[in-house]
């Protein structure tokens, strides 16, 4: 049989407590790892294009400084055994590529920035 837990009152630690703000007031408590390491919200910027899947950049179809139209093919991308094409989300000029051909990228990686 499992050894019974000793009868000891679990204490409140003196270190690591934060003041957690809620809609109902603020409370002294320990944060979870998940809460401490959460990423703050940043509003999306339509001048940035991110990868929607992990995969490999196969070809860059336009050049830095080039003017592109909304819907124009920007680059091709092989992900999950499928070939994909990224289209420009806007009319504008390509400010810079943050990736090169044959580069392996994670989901959510910044691929292209527009001016």
């Amino acid at each position, binding site marked *: 049989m*499992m050894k019974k837990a000793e009868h000891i009152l679990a204490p*409140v630690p003196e270190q690591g407590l934060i003041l957690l703000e809620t809609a109902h007031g603020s409370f002294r*408590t320990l944060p979870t790892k998940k809460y401490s390491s959460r990423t703050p919200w940043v509003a999306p910027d339509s001048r940035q294009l991110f990868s929607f899947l992990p995969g490999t950049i196969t070809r860059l179809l336009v050049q830095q400084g080039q003017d592109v139209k909304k819907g124009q093919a920007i680059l091709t991308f092989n992900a999950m055994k499928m070939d994909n094409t990224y289209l420009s989300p806007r009319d504008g000029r390509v400010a810079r590529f943050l990736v090169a051909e044959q580069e392996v990228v994670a989901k959510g990686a910044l691929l292209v920035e527009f001016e």
Partner: protein
Amino acid sequence: MAVDQKILDLQQRKELISQGGGPVAIEKQKAMGKLTARERIDALLDEGSFHEYDMFVQHSATEFGMQSKVLAGDGVVVGTGKVCGNPVAIFAQDFTVFGGSLGLSHARKITKIMDYALNMRIPLIGINDSGGARIQEGVSALAGYGEIFFRNTMASGVIPQISVILGPCAGGAVYSPALTDYVFMVDKTSKMFITGPEVIKTVLGEEISMEELGGARVHCEKTGNAHFFAHSEQECFTQIRRLLSLVPQNNTTPASREPSVEPDSKVFAIDNIVPEDPSQPYDVRNVIRAVTDDSEFFEVMELFAANIVIGYGRMGGQTVGFIANQPLVMAGVLDCDASDKAARFIRYCDAFNIPIVTLEDLPGYLPGVDQEHAGVIRHGAKLLYAYSEATVPKITIILRKAYGGGYIAMCSRHLQADFVFAWPRAEIAVMGPEGAANIIFRKEITASSEPAATREAKIDEYRQKFANPYVAAAKGYVDSVIEPSQTRKFIIHSLEIASGKTVCQPTKKHGIAPF
């Protein structure tokens, strides 16, 4: 003498199969710090109680050189035995035999013992230690997994199903444990993932170890896929035995009763555990241990979403499931993970007729873009659904804070709690006094020459008028306001009163739980 020779022959055959993959493979298994399949079964079950079946089962694969391969028991040990005197069915994959890989015969041994367990209405324990599908058997291996998943689902809520991960459990294989009730893992031994480090490296270029990707700590702390964390296989087996001593054998028989033993009120002095100031933390497990028999509490999912505590204790000798907000961690708020954790536990208790005691002290839901976007509405709804659907006796004790949506969610009278009791310091209100004063008295506060002082005065005014148990008690939402020291007595009495509880719900095939 012919008979003796037959017996000798049988003994030799059994002895050979008992050696699994042979001495070299066993040595490798030991070098990884792991026990063999048969040692595990012996360590887990009551001594000498194991009876093995299907030892002589062989695979019938013929491709890729398989026709000449003889695999002892096809890489899995199955049988029945006892835990604390109660019968159980068990299978243990044998990594020393062809990496414990799952072929059709291996899977059929498992599904056969699963059918036994379900038909006999006894708990099923599965020990997973396998490299995955036996590639040489192709789609037959996949068929084997599918047959197991189907049976896991059919047995769900009828018999307790326990998965023990004692080695790799990768790819499709993970879905059998995921469909069972309790997953046990051992630090540095257990690994669970859909796609392993190799695939991730190839596809993404990300390098991660098996332990970091899907080790015991990851699944117990981060993903919530596992329920119990142990440092050794022996500790893990002790946890399993403790769990099985607390839960019923099936959904029609009650859990075994133990003699009622009074809690240790010297150490767990219930009047002094909860600080008067609602913004100060304490460990709610002290309150649980202040009311349970012999101050014993067996916590489930201790490391995941620690802002809510779930687990088993006995009250008056009977097993009870506890759900308690934990003010020590994240002030006990409800969030996606906490709601999910508690909801599943409630459904387990309900399926196996274990009464539910809810200890409430929370300031509502966790605010934040991450929570909203992670679907706190959908996850939070699981908790409301599980509490509302449960027909077992439901007893709620409001210890301190019960604000807003949190008050409703934590098994309020409105979700059909059978008994709701509140301690005298309970603050049951639509909002916490701080938040409420800021909204209701905004004009007075901003117009004041001393806004801070006015704010404090208004908070106090609100607390006096609304943030107490008597407003809810006046409406009958709280059955009784009780002294903390009376809590155990009230819970045990409620359990006695509710022992014959019968509820008629509308006829339906099943509800649409917000999964």
